């Protein structure tokens, strides 16, 4: 299937709208290849959904985009991922820098065992922001901005109203959906360009899910978004582009409307209509 023309054609209209370009990506865990020659262009300020049956490599694919697979000792990556034209697997790349530009929200919400405020402030502090009272080692330019940025991130994540009077409380006191939005706020705080979501709603109820979907819709004005989801309706509702992955191969990649109304591959149709997977 790799040599099929359809899987290589990009639905992205203009080259200059491309933020991320995945080229001939192959990934192995030890000796098992789980991503096979994937090519994918991700457009700026759009939501790109990755769908596919369980175990097809969606998480693996999305995690390579901010090099989270580096943490797994026996993962091997070959190919290129261009972020604004620069290969993030190149030799002269600072991984930490990549992760600051490409944020990630995980399947299971994973706030730190710290206060709500500290959760959002964590990434900022790592990046040299300090609270108004503190002293900066790096000249104090970012002094006092910490609180502002925390507030803004919580507002962007549509959580501010619910937590503004209890920023000192433990993050674990929040509900599941609130915790996930806190994780989103935490990721947004360091102002990434791209935000990766790996099944962000799989542990949430419909109300909380609706909130996050609405949020993602808003976020695409500022960010480029890639989301892995198991939920076909969700992909149809919130994404502009949709990539269908199966057994590590990219079967089809197109505008979401097209994928859901007139897919060019029979397997895609079978999958989205729920005939398997």
């Amino acid at each position, binding site marked *: 299937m790799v040599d099929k023309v359809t899987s290589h054609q990009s639905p992205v209209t203009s080259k200059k709208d491309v933020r991320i370009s995945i080229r001939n990506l192959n990934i192995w865990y030890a000796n098992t290849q789980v991503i096979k020659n994937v090519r994918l262009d991700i457009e700026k300020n759009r939501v790109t959904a990755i769908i596919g049956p369980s175990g097809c490599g969606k998480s693996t694919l999305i995690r390579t985009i901010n090099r989270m697979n580096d943490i797994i000792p026996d993962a091997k990556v070959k190919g290129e991922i261009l972020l604004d034209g620069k290969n993030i697997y190149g030799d002269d790349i600072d991984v*930490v820098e990549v992760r600051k530009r490409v*944020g990630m929200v995980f399947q299971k919400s994973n706030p*730190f065992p710290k206060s709500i405020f500290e959760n959002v402030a*964590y990434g900022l502090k*790592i*990046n040299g922001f300090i609270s108004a009272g503190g002293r900066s080692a790096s000249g104090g330019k970012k002094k006092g901005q910490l609180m502002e940025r925390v507030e803004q991130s919580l507002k962007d994540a549509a959580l501010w109203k619910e937590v503004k009077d209890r920023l000192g409380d433990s993050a*674990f006191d929040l509900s599941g959906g609130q915790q996930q939005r806190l994780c989103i706020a*935490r990721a947004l705080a*360091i102002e990434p360009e791209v935000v990766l979501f790996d099944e962000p709603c799989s542990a949430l109820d419909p109300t909380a899910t609706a909130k996050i979907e609405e949020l993602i819709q808003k976020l695409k004005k500022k960010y480029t978004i890639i989301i892995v989801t198991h939920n076909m309706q969700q992909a149809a509702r919130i994404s502009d582009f949709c990539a269908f992955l199966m057994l590590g191969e990219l079967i089809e990649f197109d505008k979401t409307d097209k994928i859901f109304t007139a897919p060019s591959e029979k397997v895609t149709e079978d999958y989205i209509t729920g005939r398997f997977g």
Partner: protein
Amino acid sequence: MKRAQKENLIKRLFCLFSLLSIVFLLGIVIVLFKEGLPIFRTTSLGNFLFGKFWYPTYEPPDFGILPLLLGSLWVAVGALIIAVPLGVAGAIYISEVAQSKIKEFIKPVIELLAGIPSVVYGFFGMVIVAPLVQEVFKLPVGLNAFTASVLLGIMAIPTITSISEDAISSVPNSFKEASFALGANRWETTVKVTVPAAAGGISTAIILGMGRAIGETMTVLMVAGGAAVIPHSFFQPVRTMTATIAAEMGETVVGSTHFQALFAIAIILFIMTLTFNIIADLLTQKFRRRLR
């Protein structure tokens, strides 16, 4: 026999065993208090705890355990000053830095350290550490609080390391992932996420290490110098509560005031260790709740 009956029997057997250990514990506590409390007929609690002189064989005798209490505390605190940084750093190294091969080598070695009998530590201290301390610090004697602290510190390291290591490695991977995804490097992640998340377990480790250091007898008996005077420096010989009991119990007349005083010291020790264990337990529980 039917299965249900069999299971019932086993259940009862285990219940009996656990009851038995409670009975033993109760027995020990009762004996301790029965033999120890009568001392307070002749010496007030205040004079006992804060009396500056321990002259149990004088006429009239002085049963002030302040020198012994302070001796125990000095030695234990000194031990912690040595053991906490080393033990916690070791735990961080084992769980966060070391490759699995090195880890598999170091862990058993540290556990072996815990298995060495304390008399061996004491012997090692007398023959090697004490002369070294005497030489380096130009002291009249090498048997003092400092030497005892060094040895107790070494002895407390395995406790602190293995419990801290458990706590650190049970920090969920998802916390670390979140930290990495925010652009933190390994060091920042360890210091700002992993270790704070394991803080409950690490404090438990430290408190249990403290308990171990306070309760240790043979080593301090051999290397602390044995002078029952209020210590003013780490390089003075000291006597701990445990060493006092061990050294003097054999020479007292059963039921004499000296005998009662030694039991009363044991009561104090018992209360101290009990307190440490309760604090450690509370911390562990709090820690579990925090991580869910």
